[in-house]
């Protein structure tokens, strides 16, 4: 892979099949027509922008590529390749972060045990332990704006939820939630196309987590960090090296925050424009489970990346070692070959094998947590604010790239 910093090419895209730009403002706001065009014309698109990448857009291609972990490695799951950090940040970062963010950035065999460590803590039963406090959190957020008749459903609500839930799981004071949000945006949003900004954010997260790990080593508690430090599982070193725990905690913080907030935000954006769906969820509360799956399908937030481990032709595309593949799960979930009426949100859609959480061995470990947070966030909002609408549809802003979701989404009620 090139170590030259990627050039931020600013000229508009003329041909999405050969020169796509995942950071194009129009695309970030409304990527759906582009995906439709690509699926028809060139289902695995290519670009030289942002370090170069390939982008599959059909459900079948996403499934096949995700399944082939030998050729399509997860060693670097970030979607932009903008070169190496400047030397000073780089050396320090490398030392602290030598293991990456397992298991998301691992391949088997390390992936196998590092995932096995985490899964029992993210089962349906385990995440249910956090449901009541998530409800209380949502209620208190709503208390803060319900009398004003106006709120930013993204910034005042969606954004405030996951950072506090993950803080609670990690045993970290919730007062730090605002810092987490800033750091994670620095890493995954603002920093995605600015390697120094990203490295700086990573350093802040790692230093903070390092302190937390040392604290838990001295005083273990009933939290995820303490669990990881003492966990044992087949194939894993005993004890788990603290560097590994650091990498995994980094993942939990980074992957657990803006992904879920983007899902909740997109759900609120949808509901604000579809009063019939709000009414249905209020009249038929049992629909919430399938509604959450459908909103995840229609507005899937996450695109991950893979790297090609050796030259290989895929679907007629001459892929070379170290090429990046953007795993466009959101596009797969709108594929008409797989989903009936893919662009319609059908709250009681019966057949919905969406891959918003990925597919294959890297299926999002936190999927049950994300589902719980979405369900609770929607339910609590609709109890208090059954009717609401966008204040100004044109004023809604979106983030995209690795994680797509609304960042400003003012609603009135």
């Amino acid at each position, binding site marked *: 892979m090139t170590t030259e910093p990627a050039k931020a090419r600013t000229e508009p895209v003329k041909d999405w099949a050969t020169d796509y730009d995942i950071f194009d403002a129009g695309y970030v706001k409304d990527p759906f027509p582009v995906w439709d065009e690509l699926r028809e014309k060139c289902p695995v698109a290519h670009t030289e922008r942002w370090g170069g990448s390939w982008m599959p857009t059909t459900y079948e291609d996403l499934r096949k590529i995700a399944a082939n972990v030998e050729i399509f490695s997860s060693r670097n799951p970030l979607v932009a390749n903008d070169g190496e950090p400047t030397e000073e940040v780089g050396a320090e970062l490398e030392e602290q972060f030598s293991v990456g963010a397992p298991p998301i950035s691992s391949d088997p065999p390390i992936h196998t045990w590092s995932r096995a460590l985490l*899964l*029992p803590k993210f*089962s*349906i039963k385990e995440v249910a332990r956090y449901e009541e406090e998530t409800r209380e959190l949502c209620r208190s957020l709503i208390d803060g704006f319900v009398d004003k008749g106006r709120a930013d459903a993204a910034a005042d609500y969606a954004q405030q939820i996951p950072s506090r839930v993950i803080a609670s799981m990690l045993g970290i004071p919730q007062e730090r939630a605002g810092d987490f949000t800033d750091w994670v945006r620095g890493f995954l949003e603002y920093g995605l196309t600015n390697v120094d900004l990203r490295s700086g954010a990573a350093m802040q997260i790692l230093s903070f987590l390092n302190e937390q790990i040392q604290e838990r080593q001295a005083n273990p508690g009933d939290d995820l960090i303490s669990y990881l430090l003492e966990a044992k599982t087949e194939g894993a070193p005993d004890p788990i090296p603290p560097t590994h725990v650091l990498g995994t905690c980094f993942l939990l913080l980074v992957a657990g925050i803006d992904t879920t907030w983007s899902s909740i935000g997109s759900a609120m954006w949808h509901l604000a424009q579809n009063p019939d769906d709000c009414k249905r969820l209020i009249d038929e509360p049992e629909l919430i489970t399938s509604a959450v799956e459908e909103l995840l399908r229609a507005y899937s937030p996450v695109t991950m990346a893979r790297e090609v481990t050796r030259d290989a032709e895929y679907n007629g595309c001459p892929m070379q070692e170290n090429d990046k593949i953007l795993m466009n799960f959101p596009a797969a979930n709108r594929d008409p070959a797989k989903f009936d009426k893919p662009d319609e949100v059908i709250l009681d859609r019966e057949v*919905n*094998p969406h891959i918003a959480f990925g597919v294959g061995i890297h299926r999002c470990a936190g999927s049950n947590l994300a589902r719980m947070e979405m369900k609770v966030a929607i339910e609590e909002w609709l109890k208090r604010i059954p009717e609401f609408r966008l204040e100004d549809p044109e004023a809604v802003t979106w983030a995209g790239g690795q994680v797509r979701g609304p960042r400003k989404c003012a609603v009135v009620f």
Partner: protein
Amino acid sequence: MRIKVEVAKCEGHNRCFVVAGELFELDDSGYAHEVNDGKVPADLEEKARLAVTNCPELAISIDEDK
């Protein structure tokens, strides 16, 4: 009717358990397993089919004749 989860394919999406909780159980890591040897009572056949079609990993098979 009988159903079977192919353990090697299951990645723990938990969709089968959510749409047909009577027919599946989850282990501590969230992987699904059929209950009662996979036997599907007649009134749950529709749910069994939904479990199959909602699995993103195509990990569940169905045998209509057993």
